[in-house]
């Protein structure tokens, strides 16, 4: 008959204390997650305003354009602003790496998934400025354009 091995009392207490310690940690984390709603921060580009395209006037003559590049378009497009406005461009991508170039300006950015790139431009003359994707992004890359329309 096999001998039944008993666990030493001190060893048993240490094992119980260790398991209790681990259990308390897991319990506190579960409490924070479930009852308090504490979560791991997500990607900045999955929260507004970066997750959606928008053009907002923030002050007279001052605009904020949040542009989301997606195969194969820019949202929002067209971006309509009056003559003399200063526009802050915040650009990101929903899928692959795209380019963001506004012809006739210094705005020359990459649209990267999970990141936000920034540039500012002033539009003094009425007219149209094409937005071009200049980073190969797939079959429709050559057709991927947007427009900035500057009203008189």
């Amino acid at each position, binding site marked *: 008959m096999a001998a039944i091995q008993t666990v030493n009392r001190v060893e048993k207490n240490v094992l119980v204390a260790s398991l209790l310690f681990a259990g308390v940690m897991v319990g*506190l984390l579960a409490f924070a997650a479930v009852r308090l709603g504490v979560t791991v921060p997500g990607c900045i580009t999955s929260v507004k305003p970066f997750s959606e395209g928008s053009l907002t006037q923030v002050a007279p003559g001052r605009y904020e354009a949040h542009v989301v590049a997606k195969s194969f378009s820019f949202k929002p497009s067209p971006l309509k602003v009056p003559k003399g406005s200063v526009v802050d461009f915040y650009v990101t991508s929903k899928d692959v790496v795209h380019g963001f170039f506004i012809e006739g300006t210094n705005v020359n950015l990459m649209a990267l998934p999970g990141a936000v790139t920034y540039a500012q431009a002033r539009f003094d003359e009425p007219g149209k400025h094409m937005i071009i994707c200049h980073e190969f992004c797939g079959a429709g890359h050559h057709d991927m354009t947007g427009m900035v329309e500057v009203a008189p």
Partner: protein
Amino acid sequence: MANETKDDGAEAFVPRGAVAFFAVLIGFFSAVWLSFYALLLHRH
């Protein structure tokens, strides 16, 4: 001699040093862990 065994059997060995070390270890890591937990809740 001190610590002579009693007539009715040997005194059970208790690793007091190891237990003390374990208690300090648990205490120290509890303090560290709880500090970061409090910071997590504060930042939430």
